[in-house]
């Protein structure tokens, strides 16, 4: 992994509009903070290497190295990444009913992990009015407060960094794919920090095609005259082509064409739809509300799912073969699109004399994705 620091991060990520506001660089030191969904640099830092650059999922990500570290093999470019099993799942009877996004699988798994002390706390994303609000929760009750997808990009990792600095260990995190990538890089201790201790012991990844710019989404909702407290936002599967916002005063549909305008640039080069570097990944099930697609990727993930099932937190079923097929197709398409974009912008495997890359991966994997 190529190491740089703040100066290069500002140039490569903020400067090129690629920052998605994931929070990976925030709260590691006094120089990056996040406010109302945006990452801000407070003061210049003249270090030559630093964690801000090393953790950022949009700056010099060495896919082979990270995949090797997390999965034992270099990046293969398969549509949904390395995994053990795929299920259809939903929360079981042990999990209190609340406003889940889909089947409540994520909340159920987190609750199970907390109740069984597999993790000491979980970094989840609630909301503060119309802004995503990441926080560390300690109990299953608190986890329920964070249920439901906030479609804005959230600086969730800022809380991870802050709590890690305060000495919290064995954290669980629910992360989008870019965040899962950042966490994987963090786990590698890329800057060889002497007193490094991995503070995260469970990563539950979400499926994600794109997130929205938090401030722009707030403005769009305002522009659309959407009032009241948001209960739920959703993007129903095609061919709906709408973004549905439900508030305590009613339901509004906004055409996706308008919503796409407020997708951060950074998402367009993101090759991961299913959080391939997580322990477990969770998304929707095509055409079925109340259920989730569940991908188990690591041994740790498999154990948690087993435990959750046996303790009644989770119910799993087989996922239809054509649904798996469609998922792989969608996921593969995202990879293709993103890498083409990145290539066009000179951000993929950039030769040294042409500057720094956003991502690096083997030609083999690339050939598989873009035959």
């Amino acid at each position, binding site marked *: 992994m190529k190491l740089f*620091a703040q100066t290069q991060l500002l140039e490569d990520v903020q400067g090129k509009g690629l920052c998605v506001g994931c929070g990976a660089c925030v709260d*590691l*030191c*006094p*120089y990056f*903070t*996040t*406010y*109302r969904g*945006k990452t*801000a*640099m*407070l*003061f210049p*830092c*003249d*270090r030559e*290497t*630093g*964690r*801000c650059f090393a953790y950022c999922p949009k700056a010099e990500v060495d896919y082979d190295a990270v995949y090797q570290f997390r999965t034992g093999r270099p990046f293969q470019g398969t549509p949904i990444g390395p995994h053990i099993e795929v299920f259809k799942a939903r929360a079981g009877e042990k999990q209190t009913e609340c406003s889940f996004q889909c089947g409540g699988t994520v909340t159920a798994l987190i609750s199970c992990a907390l109740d069984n002390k597999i993790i000491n706390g979980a970094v989840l994303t609630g909301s503060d009015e119309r802004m995503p609000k990441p926080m560390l929760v300690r109990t299953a009750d608190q986890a329920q407060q964070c249920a439901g997808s906030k479609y804005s990009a959230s600086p969730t990792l800022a809380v991870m960094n802050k709590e890690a*600095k305060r000495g919290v260990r064995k954290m669980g995190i629910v992360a989008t794919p870019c965040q899962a990538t950042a966490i994987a890089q963090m786990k590698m201790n890329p*800057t060889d*920090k002497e007193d490094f201790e991995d503070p995260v012991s469970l990563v539950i990844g979400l499926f994600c095609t794109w997130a929205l710019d938090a401030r722009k989404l707030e403005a769009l909702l305002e522009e659309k005259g959407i009032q009241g407290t948001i209960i739920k936002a959703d993007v129903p599967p095609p061919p709906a082509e709408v973004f549905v916002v439900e508030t305590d005063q009613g339901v509004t549909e906004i055409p996706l064409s308008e919503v796409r305008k407020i997708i951060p640039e950074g998402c367009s080069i993101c090759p991961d739809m299913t959080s391939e570097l997580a322990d477990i990944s969770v998304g929707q099930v095509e055409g079925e509300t109340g259920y989730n697609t569940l991908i188990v990727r690591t041994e740790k993930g498999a154990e948690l799912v087993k435990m959750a099932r046996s303790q009644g937190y989770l119910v799993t079923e087989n996922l239809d073969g054509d649904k798996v097929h469609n998922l792989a197709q969608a996921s593969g398409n995202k990879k293709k699109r993103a890498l083409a974009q990145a290539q066009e912008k000179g951000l993929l495997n950039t030769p040294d004399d042409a500057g720094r890359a956003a991502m690096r991966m083997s030609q083999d994997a690339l050939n598989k994705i873009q035959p």
Partner: protein
Amino acid sequence: MSQLYEGKKGEKCLFMGNQAIARGALEAGVSVAAGYPGTPSSEIIENLAEVSKETNLYVEWSTNEKIAAEVAAAASFAGLRSMCVMKQNGVNVASDFLLHLVLSGTRGGMVLVPCDDPGALSSINEGEARHFAKLLEIPLLEPGDFQEAKDMMKWAFELSEEIRNLVMFRSVTRLSHASGSVELGEIPQTDPKAQFNYNGFILDPMEGPIVSAPVAYKHGLQQDKLKKAQELFEVSPFNTYVGPENPEILLITSSGATLYSREAIQLCNAKDKVGLLKLGTTFPLPAKLIEKHLKTTDKILVVEEVLPFMEENLKVLAQELAPRVGQKTFFGKRSGNIPITGELNPDLVATALAGILGQTYAPQNPEYTTKATQQAFFNAPTRDLTFCPGCPHRASFWSIHNVLAEDNREGFVCGDIGCYSMAFLPSGFSTLKTLHAMGSGTGVASGFGKLGQFGLNQPVVSVCGDSTFFHSGMPALVNAIHHKSDITMVILDNSGTGMTGFQSHPGLAVDAQGNEAPALDIPTICRAFGATVEICDPFYPFKTQQIFHRLLEMPGVKVLIMRQICALSPEKKRKKAFEMSVDKEICLGENCGCNKLCTRVFRCPGLRWDDETKVATIDEVICAGCGMCAAICPSGAITRKEAA
């Protein structure tokens, strides 16, 4: 201790120029002195205020210079001798009133004392009050040394009463803030009574109402007064000549430049070639006196600081006199011999003089100079201005800077005048993006805040000191509120006029003379105006930033008062609130996670970076013990312990 008042006639004292001026006013029997603080003028009012306990004298720090002039004028109208004191650009503030005052005329002697600051040693402009003398058509007196500073002051009052109009007595930094020997005169023990007469005929200057109309008549009258002053100037003892009867060069000078010129003639060994005509009365010029001296030579060197005020007036006069005195060659600013900006010194004058005389002036041995220059370059790091250790402004700008950066909408701060002006420098995190005159920050912000209709959507912030708030910040705030401008005004309330030496202002419970005074409450005023008002202590950055963020999100005019006493205030001086220390084990130093936040970025002079151990340390000689650095250290390495 006050020699200023108790010093007896004939006694010689080492007085600062401003003390000499104050003593001169006392010897003139001044009754009322009003001013607004401003370097280098402030010690005049301060010294008089101190003396006011011993004699019947009224002294005030007025809310601004215009009001100082008005307060002094009232005393003159009531038959008392009065003066108003300000720094150079203070006259700009007072000028509208003055323009009318000089038409209406005065009664008791009234003297306007501006102290100019050539070289802007403690200003952010190099403006000059001299030009106002011409603009206002009033006599201008300029002392050339400390003795004259006292003596001419007394004479200024007499002149004012002679012509029944305002007289300008102008000093400069190098006189006001320098000290020299002064032989004292008598302070009269009189008991003047104030009475304002207005029942006389409208045009009666001593008994009628005092107005500037009818303008044509009064203006004519005013010019007659000026002519009378000019006649008196012809025989003034403050215009002196030293030198040969027919000098090769006639050096004409005035004010602080007199001292440099005298020394320059010596440095050039040119006593028998150069004549020194020193003018104490520089506007209007004493034409006959000048004519006499112009006749003695063909080469004239005019030595004065900043703009060629005297030079140009002299040239006009010389042209009028040309048929009788012949055509002269002038050297000065327009010829490039004397710099047109910055202050002078003996070396600059000597260089000019030597040039005209065809000599060279080499003050230092070149070998030594080269060595000293090299050493100074490599080993004498520059001392840039910075906020004092423990200054609340550093803390305030820390929060203002960080909130605006976090807010991330390209918000900016319109600056104003006070210690906090330094926030345009790195020590204030380069936070200020505009900086002009007192009160202008909020005025400019009020304008920015109306540009939304043209697409400006950056948050607009202004800062304003507490003294500045009363001086001229209030009308700007009123303007913003009335016009529904979207701005956040941050009032940096450090309980005093910090920059100029902690003078009182209307927000404090004490006045210039040390008497108890009603303190006007800034938050109450702002609320009454209709602003949303919050108060915080900048030494609690987290809370401060929370409040500031919230206000920044709100539309309309919001006022955030950051309140914490100045580190130099008499109340705080030399007392540490906390004993500070840095835990070397915890300090992250240059490592990723801090990278010297406290020294590299926060830059309080109380901190030091130890390059050997690679940790920060506290410089206990300098640290004021405010505790702020402990609040920003990311690792908790800096700790504070309540001081005993």
